[in-house]
């Protein structure tokens, strides 16, 4: 799931300028490049698949309107994440209710889920558990967990996106994990197998729970 983040400031600026000038092809390229990541981010703040799509759409409209203001002070990906994150947090505040698990988890299953219906169901349950655990976190802790663990950004990138020092990212992650340990302990730590096989073990645990 590692993203091929653009690290070329000149390329970033060129793309932003072309989009700002109304180049449709450049915007399509931009949507293809950042769409999957933004959709994955939006999914964590949306109540359902349709809500995810609406949120993704709003974010891209905002990005399109704002890209003329991109000055290249940071990487384009960081800027995109910052705008998207603001939108997600505002969206989450607007709803004023705790996040619900996806109402149609069948939609949007990824490559890491087997075609086997039983395993897919187990993976869906794991996702729901994680989503519920994440929704129990404070907005600050949830944001940093989503960016670092799910979007695989570094501490430095998270700090830049959230406009906080790296030390704050570090401590927020630690406390977020302590909270997650409390909410996921029974599910994740019920097994005794090696850490490298833990994901599979969690699936096994989930299967037993279902039975």
């Amino acid at each position, binding site marked *: 799931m590692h993203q091929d983040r653009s690290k070329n400031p000149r390329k970033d600026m060129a793309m932003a300028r072309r989009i700002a000038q109304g180049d449709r092809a450049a915007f399509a390229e931009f949507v293809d490049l950042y769409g999957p990541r933004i959709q994955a981010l939006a999914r964590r703040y949306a109540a359902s698949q349709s809500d995810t799509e609406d949120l993704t759409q709003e974010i891209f409209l905002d990005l399109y309107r704002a890209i003329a203001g991109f000055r290249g002070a940071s990487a384009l990906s960081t800027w995109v994440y910052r705008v998207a994150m603001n939108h997600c947090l505002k969206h989450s505040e607007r709803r004023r209710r705790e996040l619900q698990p996806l109402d149609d988890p069948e939609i949007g299953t990824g490559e890491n889920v087997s075609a086997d219906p039983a395993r897919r169901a187990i993976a869906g349950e794991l996702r729901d558990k994680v989503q519920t655990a994440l929704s129990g976190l404070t907005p600050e802790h949830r944001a940093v967990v989503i960016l670092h663990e799910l979007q695989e950004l570094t501490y430095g990138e998270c700090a830049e996106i959230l406009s906080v020092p790296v030390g704050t990212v570090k401590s927020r992650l630690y406390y977020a*994990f302590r909270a997650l340990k409390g909410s996921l302990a029974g599910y994740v730590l019920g097994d005794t197998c090696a850490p490298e096989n833990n994901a599979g073990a969690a699936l096994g645990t989930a299967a037993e729970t279902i039975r």
Partner: protein
Amino acid sequence: MKCELIQTDLKAFCDNELPFPRRLAIRRHLAQCPACREEVTTMEKIAENLQYSSQSNEPLSDNLRARILANASQATGSPALPSSPRPELGEGPGVRAKRRLSPLTVAGFCATLALFAFFAMRQGLFRLQPPAPSPGSSGAQDTYTLSKNEAFRSRIDAGGPITIDGQPPAVSTARSVASLARESNAPESTGNSPSAAAPMAAAPAGDLSGDFSLDRQVHRQANVTVQLKDPEAASDQVVEMTKDAGGYVAENDLITDDGGQKSAQMTLKVPVEQFDTVLGQIEKLGNVTAKNVTGQDITGKVSDASQAEVVLEDEVARSNAHLAALGRRAHWADEEDARQVRIELAQARARVQLLHKLAALADITVSLTQTPKPAPPAQTGFLSNLRGNGSAAFQSMLGTLSAVLTALIWILAYIPIWGPLAFAVWYTRRYLRETRA
């Protein structure tokens, strides 16, 4: 190391986001602490499950992609698009975007500051000389003196070493620290009286109000160059002065150069209370040509070293207790660890002692140089003139020759260009002459 001290770094340890020394320290701790090891394992498991639960970044559905592009097209149609304002980034909870100040605002702010500083200096608000003591206002007076000393100290703290120009204050544009110190402590003193001694120093700063000054540790250094007739005799005087002040001479070199000029290089260690006294006496020996006084606040270093000492003492006690508990079962690696901690403790103690010594003893480096003898009159005479003129003539001839040589090379190099031209001119003239004939 206690678990509480490293717990907040455990997640960063798992993510490999710690600097190497910290990572090493945590690794050492984990080797001894099963609870923290378990915590790390738990965090790794949670992270793996989070990553497993996250769906891959699947591409947008065709429908969504089309809607996004259509939205953009509609937005392009609106005239406000090119100059549409950037959305406020800092509105979401927990997210604060950095706002940039416009150059005009910054310029206005700087101009206001400059104006304020200008008028404040004109009004004498920044003068460090305390006002004349007036009876009946002791409380306010103390506060004022304290603030001046604080200001003075903050210069040392902020700037680290402060260099003072040795030139007279009338020439120097910057106010020297020495003069500031004298003003702040004893305005009428010349720097030689004991009352003006060590205004920057920690221990002797009894003239500073409040306790805050007592725990400051400042290492003072001075370099002074004095020009005088007899450096040898003067160096003896400096040795005597240093001994009288309770210090010692760490280095004393007497040098005579090829021209017979004598000079002496000395490094003195004097108690910080006597720093200004000794410096003043040295300056009186002759003409001061250069002077450099620095004060470095080492309070932070002393504090760090002391804390390290305390922590290591605790470590030593724990390792001793651990060894005692193990008894004969103690492994050689445990004993090696205990020995290592004892060595680190001894090093920390030595560091603390050294820093205290640095704060207690000031360094003065003295260069005593002999007043230069009048230069011998230049030799005049037929032979010297001839030698000088001959050399100049030779140089001139070389210059002329090089010009000729350059011209020759130029002519040869451009033959392909001017050759045909010259031939054409010659041929034309000849042809015309023949025609006329």
